[in-house]
């Protein structure tokens, strides 16, 4: 059981790491099944391998493979930023008056909006040709698995909508009308479903590219678009880094805090943390993609 769990955790390591050390590590995990600490060492080791910029295990990697992995990582970071950004937009949609009183809040929102626009354009420029190539490959090769991978984010989205609709439709029947705490009853499963959707959306491009094996010119284009995507992530991070603390301090002034409660403001800190968490790996992946594209 522990050996099996250990082998599952090996999947957390970057692909080039698994190619270099995976077989040996699998052997070690079988010979010496890890305890709780050993399993934790696999998780922290995988995080370290993702964050470490260099290492001889990366050097033998072909340029196309390096670009593919870096572009996949950048896109995954963008998904995390998009989820946090959507949450930020929803929470602060009625903050116009407060932003008018605090020019710094307005400037920060502008930075976030510009970042979101740059990111969307970068994803379209870099991502759409890859989607077209993967779709053509799926049809040409009659590769059902590739088709399923391509459709997986849409399928996950549809399942989420179905879950939400099912919960709303089923509530009156279960409770004889909408009960007082129904919103909470709805929020928890839908939020978990949305997280699962985001995870599928973040991981699917990597799996699609691995299977579709796009040509180098498309990966090079996506790598350059990835530079803009990294810039967009930094802009969103800087915007949130200004917006959230300023809003927090503004709330101490009576009548200037706007319609947000303390809980909502605290959850904006969570969005900020998520974006900052994505920024580091995004910058590392962008640097890797740039190096591979120039090689």
């Amino acid at each position, binding site marked *: 059981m522990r050996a099996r769990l250990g082998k599952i955790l090996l999947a957390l390591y970057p692909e080039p*790491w698994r190619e270099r*050390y995976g077989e*040996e590590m*699998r*052997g070690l995990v079988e010979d010496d099944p890890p305890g709780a*600490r050993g*399993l934790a060492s696999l998780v922290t*080791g995988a995080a370290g*391998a993702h964050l470490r910029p260099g290492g001889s295990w990366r050097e033998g990697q072909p340029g196309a493979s390096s670009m593919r992995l870096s572009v996949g990582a950048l896109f995954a970071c963008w998904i995390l930023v998009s989820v946090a950004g959507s949450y930020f937009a929803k929470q602060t949609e009625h903050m116009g008056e407060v932003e008018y009183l605090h020019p710094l809040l307005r400037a920060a929102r502008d930075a976030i909006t510009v970042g979101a626009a740059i990111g969307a354009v970068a994803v379209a420029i870099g991502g759409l040709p890859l989607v077209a190539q993967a779709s053509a490959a799926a049809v040409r090769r009659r590769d059902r698995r590739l088709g399923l991978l391509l459709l997986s984010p849409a399928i996950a989205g549809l399942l989420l909508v179905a879950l939400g609709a099912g919960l709303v439709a089923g509530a009156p029947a279960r409770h004889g009308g909408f009960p007082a705490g129904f919103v909470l009853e709805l929020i928890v499963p839908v939020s978990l479903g949305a997280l699962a959707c985001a995870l599928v959306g973040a991981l699917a491009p990597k799996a699609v590219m691995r299977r579709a094996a796009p040509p180098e010119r498309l990966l090079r284009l996506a790598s350059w678009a990835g530079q803009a995507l990294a810039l967009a992530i930094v802009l969103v991070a800087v915007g949130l880094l200004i917006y959230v603390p300023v809003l927090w301090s503004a709330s101490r002034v009576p009548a200037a805090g706007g319609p947000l409660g303390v809980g909502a403001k605290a959850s904006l800190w969570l969005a900020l943390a998520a974006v900052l968490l994505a920024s580091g790996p995004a910058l590392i992946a962008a640097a890797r993609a740039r190096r591979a594209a120039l090689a």
Partner: protein
Amino acid sequence: MDRSDPSLLVLASLAGGEKHGYAMVADIEEMADVHLGPGTLYGALARLESDGLIEATEPSGRRRPYRITAAGSQALERRLEALSRVAETGLTRLRAAEAT
């Protein structure tokens, strides 16, 4: 011996001859009473290999032995000497304090 530094433990283990992962874990446990997890061990191996302090040899089946390089031996010697100076000084001071 700095028991918190897996790289040092791995170098010290390989100073006794080439070993594969499992043999290193067993040797380090016997030598320093430290059980290195697989993530910690391979994190250290990857760092040491990137720095040219160890090198992999021909694999036998799933196991790939590693050996210390000349640069690795020099680095290990320097660090052990530094640790030895610290240990010697610390012990001398402790004894002096006990004597007074």
